[in-house]
């Protein structure tokens, strides 16, 4: 496929071109802003866009060090952040009017790591406010449009991040996944997204949704890119007591290794019930690809995943009702009357689940069942190396369909939420298209702290297929 633009290239390719001075950082920045000028009015992926001339100045400064060598592969690469991440002196809203005028005095740890590596921040992406949603429609700003069909949602809650990567407005973005919020929009926008193991990437500076479930992860066009990004942002942070150490050797070393002999588990509970047939078909095709690659396929059973959404929501909403208590407009932000109905609904449900007389049967019961789920995942992983499943039960819905149906909205998390409850990592990869050309992704779930294995298998898949190379028609210059 002829690459019509620089931002079609992978990160290591761009890094190579930069370091050999075949291109300059400013060219990447200029291309990003040109695509933004053209496509942002259609896509609405940004809440805050940094001033182009300021960013170009930064690019100039960074350019001076290009010849010094030993630079990170992310050096000079344009990226964006879900508006969950605190960025010093750059407005951060979590897509809520409560923080409409909030300018943080500090940056999240992962942001500091990316900036230290020389990556270039373009802007902050829209999302479901506070992470509350699977469609990015629960935003106080413009609703994100799916670049593949602007009448449809881009998924959520990291919808803005997925859309801007798909539209080549940036090379990569960092999303946030609590119940599927990276994987869901990645699938709907045909990009690759990684939900890391809980604790793999520091949560310090990420506006909390559910503290025991929130994970921070990269979204980009390829698995290869995800591996390079994770190298920079992963690792223990002394400001996050739940972050883990023990980094493996560089993630990029696992790309290209053979997956011969590895086993893929197919959880039968994830393949029954109401699933759009085209989605089922895509996942089955993917399983065939893995068989061609020499992997074994085996069926596993996780009976309690049918309670997954209930368990997830009881815990997530309880934790979010607590995490949102600080927004009292005393020290920063606007008053609580700016919370949307969806957010208010979640706060009320969470408060109820924690209240005296109900906590035992709701919140605590959910935590006990969570342990059962963790054990079930553990048992499944005795029989296989990774699990495969769809990402969502249907195709990308039209705008307005999900947000008007709270229960259906919750059920979008069917395949993704139990992964957060278990703490495991998972990869969402482009795996095909519907008859109307809508992207359909599939999910690979790995053992804890085995992102390397996910990368290995995901990379092999992307060598065998080219779904991930497709770009949405709107990006072609007319």
């Amino acid at each position: 496929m002829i690459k019509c633009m620089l931002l079609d290239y992978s990160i290591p390719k761009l890094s190579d071109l930069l370091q050999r001075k075949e291109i300059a950082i400013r060219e990447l920045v200029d291309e990003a802003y040109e695509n933004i000028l053209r496509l942002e009015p259609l896509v609405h992926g940004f809440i805050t866009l940094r001033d182009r001339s300021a960013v170009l100045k930064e690019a100039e400064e960074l350019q001076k060090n290009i010849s010094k060598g030993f630079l990170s592969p992310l050096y000079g690469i344009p990226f964006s952040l879900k508006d969950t991440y605190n960025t010093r002196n750059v407005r951060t809203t979590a897509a809520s009017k409560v923080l409409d005028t909030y300018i943080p005095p500090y940056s999240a740890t992962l942001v500091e790591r990316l900036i230290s590596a020389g990556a270039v921040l373009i802007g902050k992406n829209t999302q479901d406010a506070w992470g509350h949603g699977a469609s990015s429609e629960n935003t106080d700003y413009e609703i994100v449009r799916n670049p593949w069909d602007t009448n449809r949602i881009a998924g959520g809650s990291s919808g803005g991040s997925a859309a801007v990567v798909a539209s080549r407005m940036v090379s990569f973005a960092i999303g946030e996944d609590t119940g599927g919020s990276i994987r869901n929009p990645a699938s709907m926008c045909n990009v690759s997204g990684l939900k890391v193991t809980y604790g793999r990437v520091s949560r310090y500076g990420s506006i909390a949704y559910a503290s025991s479930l929130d994970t921070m992860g990269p979204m980009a066009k390829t698995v290869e890119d995800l591996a390079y990004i994770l190298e920079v942002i992963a690792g223990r942070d002394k400001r996050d007591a739940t972050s883990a150490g023990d980094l493996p050797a560089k993630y990029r070393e696992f790309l290209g290794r053979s997956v011969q002999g590895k086993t893929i588990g197919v959880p039968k509970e994830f393949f029954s019930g109401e699933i759009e047939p085209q989605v089922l078909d895509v996942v089955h095709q993917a399983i065939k690809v893995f068989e061609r690659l020499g992997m074994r396929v085996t069926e596993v059973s996780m009976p309690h995943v049918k309670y997954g959404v209930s368990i997830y929501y009881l815990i997530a909403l309880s934790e979010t009702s607590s995490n949102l208590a600080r927004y009292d407009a005393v020290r920063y932000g606007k008053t609580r009357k700016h919370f949307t109905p969806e957010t208010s609904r979640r706060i009320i449900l969470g408060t109820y689940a924690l209240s005296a007389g109900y906590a035992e049967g709701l919140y605590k019961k959910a935590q006990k069942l969570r342990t059962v789920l963790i054990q079930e995942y553990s048992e499944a992983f005795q029989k296989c190396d990774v699990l495969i499943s769809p990402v969502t039960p249907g195709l990308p819905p039209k705008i307005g369909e999900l947000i008007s149906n709270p229960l259906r909205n919750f059920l979008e998390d069917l395949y993704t939420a139990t992964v957060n409850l278990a703490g495991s990592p998972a990869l969402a990869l482009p795996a095909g298209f519907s008859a109307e050309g809508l992207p359909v992704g599939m999910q690979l779930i790995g053992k804890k702290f085995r992102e390397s294995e996910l990368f290995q298998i995901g990379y092999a898949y992307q060598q065998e297929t080219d779904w991930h190379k497709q770009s949405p028609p709107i990006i072609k210059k007319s």
Partner: protein
Amino acid sequence: MDKQYRTIIGMETHIELKTASKMFCGCKNDPFYAPAPNIYTCPVCLGLPGALPVPNKKAVQWTLMLGLALGCKVNMLSKFDRKHYFYPDLPKGYQISQYDVPLCYDGKLQTSFGEVRIRRVHLEEDTGKLLHAKIDGQKVTLVDFNRSGVPLVEIVTEPDIHCAEQAKEYAKKLRQLVRYLDISDCDMEQGSMRLEANISLKQITSNLSLDTGEENELPSYKVELKNINSFRFLERAINYEIRRQAEILAKGEMPVQETRGYNPEKDITYTQRVKETAEDYRYFPDPDIPPMRFSDEQIQEIQGFIPELPFQVIARWQKTYGLEPRFAELIFERFYEVEKLDLIFAELIRQGLSVAKLVSLLAQKKIEVDILRDTPEQICVIFKKLTMLDDVSEKEIIPVVETVLKENFGAVEDYLSGRKQVINFLVGQVNKALGKKIDFSRLRSLVEEQIKKL
């Protein structure tokens, strides 16, 4: 028949630990002496979006140490919980505290009235401070977060205290122990020690023996006393409360379950807040902080940090040096002062000097030494100079006495008319005139003799 009441008091004490940094962040822990408001703050203790708490290890160790010194058991698996309520000085909308698995539980503190059982010792974070002011003619409330996040230990007793004097003794002994361990200054004016007393009266008829099972039933109400700024006020407030509650009960009514403050000027307690039901704090384990698992070795190590406790020190000194407890307990406050004093005593013994005499001088503040900075040898030198007596004969003394008596015949008349304590003034004048070191009682008997001769 006269109604008899048994006073039932339980106390809750909060102590600010004097760790270098706050409980969950690296900010400086020095709220009282901060030169300006809101300078010891960061995203964590301000509750900014995205900030996370990381526990202060020293604070946990010191809490365990205090609990062990109080004879408590340790919860080998403990955790922090979130306690939710809304208030402007509580930045996160919840306080990180401990709910059902406190670090320590089941201890005791001895008082002369009997043992006071300690129900629990737990660790939490302090809130910010509110200040009411008037700015441009408008009444406002200002918030200072220098104190937000400071480590706070909470010590809760069983309702084993039965009178105001015992409450005061308990509070004083607790303070003494905490200051001795040097984990807090326990200054009530500065707010590093805060007392709360829960008081109720239990009716007992005069022929009901205290040995029956009814002894353990608690009254169905309790009144909480807060904002008491001194031990003296604590005693007075409790005594006032006992009288107030007895009057209400005598009328056949029940005292309202409420929180009351103490007004020292009027010497009364007054209603601050009425609580019909207990607040629902929606406690749940804080997911940002992994639970704490202690090993036997770790607890043993902390047990090893506990120095010899004050009562043990005083007993040892009584046995070894014959020191009277009432003097001994006046000469030290912190454990490291005891270490130094032991060295000083050893040096005194080596030089054949009197330990009891030095302790008496120290207790009465009659000797100018710095226990911590002066070496034992230096202290001995000062001690010898102070106590060595000059060899002065009666031949020298008597003329001076006669002169002093002549010059102070007014004082002599006072003495003869019954004001015997004037003798000290006269002896002092003799001492001054002589300018030598003479045993006071010897001088006194000589002066008395001379007066008789007048």
